[in-house]
C-alpha cells in the first residue's frame, strides 16, 4: 500500500481547515460551559476537581501522540513511504504542547489536592521524561543540517524513546516502593459520576479536534518545507 499525497489531497485539507477551526472553537465553548458551570463540584476535592477536565485529555493525547509518532517512525522504516515521516513531524510539536500542558495543569491541581506542586510518582515522572523525548526529537531534527538524514536520525531516536518509556515507568514504580513505602499519596480514583463524565467527554473531543486541526496545518507546513528543501537542493 503506497499512498502518495497529491494536490487534490492538499486542497481537501485546505478546504476542511475553516470548518475544523470552527468546530474546535464550538466544542471547546460547550466543553467549557459544562466543565465550569454545569458539572457539580466533587465532594472530596471541591471545585479544584474541574482542572481534571483539561488535565486528563491533554495527558491522554500526549501519550497517544507519542504512540502515533513512534508508530509512524517504525512504519516509515519498514515501508519507506515518506508520508509517515511527514505525519511524524507534523504531529510531534502538538504532542509536546499537550505534554507540557498536562504537566502544568497537573502540578496546579496537585497543590490544593496533595499540598505540594509535584509528586515523584511513576505517572508524573514518566510524563516529564516524555516531555524531554519530544524536545529531543524536535531539536535533533533542527540541529542536523542535512534534513533527509535528520529525519532518519530523529526517527530512530523516537523509537528508542518509545522503548524507554515503559522501562522508566517500571523503574520509578520500583524505586518508590524502595524508598518511601506506601507513603505516597496517589491520585485517588473513585468511580466517576456521570455528571462529570459528560464534560470530560466533550473536552476530550475538543482536544482531539484541536490535535487534528493543528496537525493538518502542520502537515501542510511540513510538505511546503520539504518542497522548498527540494528546490534549494
Amino acid at each position, binding site marked *: 500500500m503506497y499512498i502518495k499525497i497529491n494536490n487534490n489531497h492538499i486542497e481537501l485539507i485546505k478546504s476542511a481547515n475553516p470548518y475544523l477551526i470552527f468546530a474546535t472553537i464550538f466544542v471547546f465553548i460547550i466543553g467549557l460551559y459544562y466543565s465550569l458551570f454545569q458539572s457539580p463540584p466533587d465532594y472530596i476535592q471541591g471545585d479544584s476537581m474541574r482542572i481534571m477536565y483539561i488535565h486528563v485529555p491533554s495527558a491522554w493525547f500526549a501519550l497517544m501522540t507519542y504512540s502515533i509518532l513512534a508508530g509512524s517512525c517504525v512504519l516509515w522504516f519498514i515501508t519507506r513511504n515518506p508520508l509517515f515521516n511527514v505525519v511524524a513531524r507534523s504531529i510531534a510539536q502538538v504532542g509536546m504542547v499537550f505534554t507540557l500542558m498536562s504537566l502544568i495543569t497537573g502540578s496546579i491541581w496537585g497543590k490544593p489536592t496533595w499540598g505540594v506542586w509535584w509528586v515523584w510518582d511513576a505517572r508524573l515522572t514518566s510524563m516529564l521524561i516524555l516531555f524531554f523525548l519530544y524536545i529531543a526529537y524536535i531539536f535533533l531534527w533542527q540541529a542536523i543540517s*542535512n*534534513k*533527509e538524514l535528520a529525519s532518519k536520525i530523529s526517527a530512530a531516536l523516537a523509537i528508542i524513546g518509545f522503548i524507554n518509556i515503559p522501562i522508566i515507568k517500571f523503574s520509578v514504580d520500583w524505586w518508590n516502593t524502595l524508598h518511601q513505602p506506601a507513603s505516597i499519596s496517589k491520585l485517588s480514583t473513585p468511580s466517576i459520576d456521570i455528571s462529570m463524565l459528560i464534560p470530560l467527554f466533550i473536552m476530550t473531543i475538543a482536544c482531539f479536534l484541536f490535535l487534528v486541526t493543528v496537525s493538518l496545518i502542520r502537515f501542510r507546513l511540513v510538505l511546503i518545507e520539504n518542497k522548498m*528543501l*527540494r528546490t534549494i*537542493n
Partner: protein
Amino acid sequence: MNELKIEDLSCKRGESKVLNNINIIIKSGETLVVKGRNGSGKTTLLRILSNFITSYQGKVSLNDLSILEDNLYNNKFNLIGQKNSLKDNLSIKKNLELWDIIFNESLDHAKLLERDNLDHLINRDVGSLSDGQKKCISLHRLNYNKYEFWFLDEPFVYLDEANTNSLIEKINRFNENMGIVILTSNINLPKKFHKEVNI
C-alpha cells in the same frame, strides 16, 4: 589485470539527482579524471566507488563481481578525501604513527618525507601548518603500498607547482605498476591523463 566497470549508475542525494546514467570502464594502468562543476556529484561518485554509499541504481563491478559483494574490495583501494584526516593538536610524527596502526603497515616515514622535502616539518603540530602543507602530508598516505586503486578527491587543491608535478609523477609511477587512479578535479591539469569524464 583489474577492470573496474560502472554501468548505468544513477544516484539521488535527497530529492535531487546528482549522477545520471554513467558508464565508465577503466583498466589496470589507467587514470581517470572526473570533471564537472561544483555539486555535480564528483565526490558522490568516489564515495560510491569506495562503498560508503550503497543505495544507488546501476552496477559497479570489479572484474565482473559487484563491489558490494566483494569482501576483499575494501582492502584494495586507498581513498584520500577532501578532509585531511590529521589531528590538529598532535605533531606530524604522532599522526603518522596513528595512521600506521590503522593501515596496519609501518613505513619508514623519515625517508619518505625527505624524498618529498617535508622532513623539516616532522615535529611540528599540524595546527601550525598551512593548508598546502596539510594537503601534502595528507597525500603522504599514498605511500602505503598494498593498494591497487587510488581514489583522490580534489588532490591538486592548495598544491603549488612543484608539488603538483611531483604528484603527477607519483600517479604515473603508480600507473606503470598497473595501478588504477581515479581523481576528481574542476580545474585544467597541466598534463593529459588517459581518460576524462565530464559529469
